[in-house]
């Protein structure tokens, strides 16, 4: 972990300059005239959400569109206006949220290099996707509702990124889960969509449980949830390593695996493709799912103190990358292929974090946001062209019919495969190289990454060939190119996918690495072997080209081959096709819990044991009542008779000398004898 501690002090000196509480607009910036207005970044989309959410159905469509587009644009411009700020971090606090006893949580936002990069991606790509959605959703009844949810997502996502303490980050964290739930289930009348939304929320909740325990542990051990203060305490005590910090890191990692769809909680992401395609592009590819990577990078000062936790992060990342890529090979739904590809690429980012190459992870996050958003939007354009058909087996030969979509998507495919000089090449290469330099274990991780790169090229070109080449396999489709509101974002994203990688060229990831260095530490992958990096790059590109070649062989030259291979390896094929039966396995767990609840808890405990006890008590009372009731015959004379008998008994009792009913002085017999 060569990048571990030296940067913490620097980081601290920036973070600790907190503003006085309650000071609106007062950044820690020395330039007082800088109005950072960080609050505008989340609140502009929130305003859009409120207006479109409450009034949307009554407003004219152009106004809904205007409000929806203005919200991310305002955020983007505010972020951009702060991009060249000389004094990072800009911190603003808007008063206390929770303040009891020793628990103090502020609404504090912090803009530094890391959050700035994230925000540029979120609001920039977010804005493009909003523009795209105007065309994509124009015939949908829930037009205003869609945009209000999309704005709500941006509100929570920007909160997540800007949060100055862990709990505020958790607000954004759960909030994006909510937005994701609402958007996946946007077409709620489709049972599969409603199911997928629920599944996404619940699986994320499982991860959030880990995150929450991590927060409790931070609170118990550091007494604060502010990132800066935690980092300060760590920096002041260089001896704190491992132990409880490992536990905290593993809890946080568990949370991250939920949000970022890593093993073992990735199962919700493929189902999330039930949502509208722009949602898949924005939330389930470019931004929300990368929150886990962001979170680990943001709390890297903790992970740096626990080599074990870092190794776990790397192993989870590499395993997920490979695992998801194998499943991506056999999917036939165009969006599901991209979903598995997203899981796989997120695995790369985790791998980068696990080898402490945080800036490489963030770099890949950025380039991935460009080309994966582009892939989804282009896939959306294909689906749009095919009249809402998502099965690749029914596509083919679309190259001529929708040329703009074809060419932009080609750029994205080459980028994700990591072929020079497209964006994906630089970021993926940085990750693999950093892994390779991490000793023997690192070489295993590097090899896994390389195999994944081969598989990535294979399934991406498979998608490319099945969609755009060969003959059209569906007869009732009339493909047509999408409107320019959809193609415009495609072209911009294609340009970014082609040229976006060059910001990370040079030693230590070039300008990108230098910009992030104050937060994440410099990217310092260096080897004593000369030209090692060059050889590695050539090898990676060669592997990607090999994947392309295999795909070309199978899906262009001999389209009947895949079926033959699938038949000869039917066991393996079925295993992959059924996604390793993981969903079924989790399904058994859920069924077991439901069965346990119904048969043991409800029937046995609640019904038999507790209900039986209550029944026993009640029936004892009832039985004694039934016996005593026989006295209450309702017959006047029997009452009178009992009255008489009772009176006689009392009288007799009083008169008998040995009962001592009366005090001695009042006894009848004594008086009589006087």
């Amino acid at each position: 972990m060569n990048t571990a501690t030296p940067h913490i002090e620097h980081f601290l000196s920036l973070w600790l300059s907190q503003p006085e509480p309650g000071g609106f607009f007062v950044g820690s910036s020395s330039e007082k005239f800088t109005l950072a207005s960080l609050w505008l970044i989340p609140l502009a989309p929130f305003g859009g959400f409120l207006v479109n959410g409450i009034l949307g159905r009554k407003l004219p469509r152009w106004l809904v569109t205007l409000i929806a587009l203005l919200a991310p644009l305002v955020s983007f411009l505010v972020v951009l206006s702060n991009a060249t700020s000389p004094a990072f971090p800009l911190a603003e606090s808007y008063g206390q949220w929770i303040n009891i006893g020793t628990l103090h949580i502020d609404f504090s936002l912090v803009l530094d290099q890391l959050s700035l990069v994230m925000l540029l991606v979120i609001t920039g790509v977010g804005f493009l996707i909003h523009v795209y959605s105007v065309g994509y959703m124009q015939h949908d009844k829930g037009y205003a509702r869609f945009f209000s949810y999309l704005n709500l997502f941006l509100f929570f996502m920007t909160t997540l990124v800007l949060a100055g303490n862990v709990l505020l980050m958790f607000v954004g964290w759960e909030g994006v889960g909510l937005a994701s739930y609402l958007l996946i289930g946007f077409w709620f009348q489709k049972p599969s969509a409603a199911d997928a939304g629920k599944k996404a929320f619940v699986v994320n909740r499982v991860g959030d449980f880990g995150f929450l325990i991590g927060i409790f542990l931070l609170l118990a051990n550091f007494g604060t949830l502010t990132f800066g203060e935690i980092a300060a305490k760590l920096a002041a005590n260089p001896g704190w390593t491992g132990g409880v910090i490992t536990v905290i890191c593993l809890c946080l990692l568990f949370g991250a695996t939920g949000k970022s769809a890593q093993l073992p909680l990735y199962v919700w992401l493929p189902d999330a493709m039930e949502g509208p395609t722009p949602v898949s592009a924005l939330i389930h590819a470019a931004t929300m799912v990368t929150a886990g990577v962001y979170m680990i990078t943001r709390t890297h000062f903790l992970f740096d103190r626990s080599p074990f936790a870092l190794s776990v992060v790397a192993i989870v990342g590499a395993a997920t990358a490979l695992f998801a890529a194998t499943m991506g090979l056999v999917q036939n739904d165009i969006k599901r292929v991209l979903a598995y590809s997203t899981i796989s690429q997120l695995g790369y980012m985790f791998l980068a974090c696990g080898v402490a190459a945080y800036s490489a992870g963030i770099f890949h996050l950025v380039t991935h946001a460009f080309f994966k958003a582009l892939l989804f939007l282009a896939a959306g354009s294909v689906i749009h062209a095919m009249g809402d058909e998502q099965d690749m087996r029914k596509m083919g030969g679309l190259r001529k019919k929708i040329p703009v979509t074809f060419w932009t998507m080609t750029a994205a495919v080459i980028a994700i495969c990591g072929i020079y000089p497209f964006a994906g090449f630089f970021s993926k290469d940085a990750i693999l190289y950093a892994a390779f330099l991490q000793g023997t274990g690192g070489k295993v991780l590097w090899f896994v990454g390389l195999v994944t790169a081969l598989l990535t090229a294979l399934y991406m070109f498979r998608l490319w060939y099945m969609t755009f080449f060969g003959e059209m396999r569906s007869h009732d489709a009339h493909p047509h190119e999408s409107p320019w509101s959809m193609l415009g974002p495609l072209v911009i994203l294609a340009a970014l996918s082609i040229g976006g990688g060059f910001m990370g060229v040079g030693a230590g990831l070039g300008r990108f690495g230098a910009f992030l260095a104050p937060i994440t530490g410099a990217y310092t992958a260096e080897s004593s072997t000369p030209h090692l990096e060059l050889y590695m790059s050539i090898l990676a590109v060669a592997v990607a080209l090999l994947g392309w070649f295999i795909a070309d062989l199978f899906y262009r030259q001999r389209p009947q081959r895949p079926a033959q291979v699938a038949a000869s390896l039917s066991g393996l094929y079925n295993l992959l096709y059924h996604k390793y039966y993981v969903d079924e396995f989790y399904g058994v767990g859920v069924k077991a819990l439901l069965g346990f609840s119904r048969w043991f808890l409800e029937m046995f405990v609640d019904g038999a044991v507790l209900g039986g006890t209550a029944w026993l008590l009640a029936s004892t009372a009832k039985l004694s009542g039934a016996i005593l009731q026989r006295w209450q015959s309702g017959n006047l004379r029997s009452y009178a008779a009992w009255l008489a008998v009772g009176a006689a008994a009392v009288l007799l009792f009083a008169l008998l000398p040995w009962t001592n009913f009366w005090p001695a002085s009042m006894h009848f017999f004594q008086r009589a004898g006087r």
Partner: protein
Amino acid sequence: MTAIDHSILTWILLVPLAGAIVVALLPDQGKLPNWIALLTALGTFALTLHLPAHFIANQGGFQFEINRLWITDPAISYHVGVDGLSLWLVVLTGLLAPIGVLASWNAIQTRRKVFYSLFLVQQTSMFGVFVALDLMLYYGFWELSLVPMAVLIAMYGRKEGPKAALKFFLFTFIPSAPLLVAILWLYARTHTFDFVTLQVLLNHSVFPAQAMFWVALAFLFAFAVKVPVFPLHGWIADTFAEAPVAMAMVVAGKLGLYSMLRFHVGLFPAQARAIAPLLMALAVIGVLYGACLALVQRDFFKLLAFGTVSHFSLVTLAIYGLTLTGWNGAVYQILSLGIVEAAMFVLLGALDVRFGTSQIAMYGGLAAKLPRTASYFVIAVLTMIGLPLLSGFVGEFVILSSTFTGASRSCAVLAALGTILSASYMLWLTQRLFYGPESTFAMSKPSADLRFGELAALTPLVLLMLIMGVAPSLWFKTIEKGVHPPQARNSMGLPPSVLLLPSVIVTEPNTEGQQ
């Protein structure tokens, strides 16, 4: 202090009672009882708002106090007052009164006069429980609160009203007999029913330990049934399924939990400390047990009942975690749950009135037909499952984090599992009611979206969920003073932030990280 401050609590107690009498005397024509009840409830709510407006936040102890000797021998006083603990509970009760009337507006079609006058009597009795500071007076209100509830469950039950009423009555009445005996025992020993005097006496004099054990247990038992704490929850499912929504929304939780905090932990700290581990274990079981049972319910009122058991068990955990931060969270969570439950009952009651069934399986795909209902329902569900920036999260987080850092890590972790389960059953319910294709049953019934009255009831609740989620300090400011029982600060010589529980590890920052 103005003149009104010296009599405001009496007014709060009397106005609903007067309204009840007026409703009872006037003829049962049309919506006349509804309007009188609504006006009375709104008036009472306005009166309760006087309390926070004139409450002095940074002053401990009871305010708006009235103390008059009522009966000389035995010495029963009319002693009422509020502190930070009960202040917002009184306001919550006041808020829920007009909402209860609005929720019953169309649901109650027959014998409106009986319903609304008993409803208003119930309000008086609940206010009484929260403000009474004389144990006999408190006991009177406590018993009184059970009667209109039982009668109305019996009268307006959906299917098996009398049976549910009997169950409710037996479960809640039997434990109050030992409570009365315990109160009388205390009187025999101390010659006072006064809460404040008793609190001092019990802390300064020595009473036989065994007798005190039983006395404290009698108090606890009566309260635990009302919360309800596992395994005493047998009444709640039937009561929720049968009771009119206006009654069901107030029956569980706040009365019992408040009484625990004030009269069990408050009067018997040593006994509470001794029994706390048991209560915490039961609370954790209750959180998980209630959630698991909610997963498999077929009737939405019963689902809500077991969800309620789960959520109120979390509050019990906070109370018997015996940390002051936890108590703040507990009171806050009682308020939050009171609001959420009310909203849920208004919404589910609206569905029940429109479609005539509470069987979940009959519903489906209502979101297209009833978009407003769906929106409000989703917000209420999100609050219930503790989504940040809504009120439920603040309470849950404060409770769980204080339990984790101050009382028991394992209990906190296990209880936090409940957050996963609550998301599961509430979202399942949402999906079954509102999403998917519209069910044939739902299509067969013509139905309108929320009426004006229902919107008027729900909108303030939803706004409160948001405000309480974003600005909890508005409430914590006053609650914080209230949950410092005097014995924690003075008699036992403990600083306010230290826990009552001696076995608790006050976490030294980073002890484990230093190895």
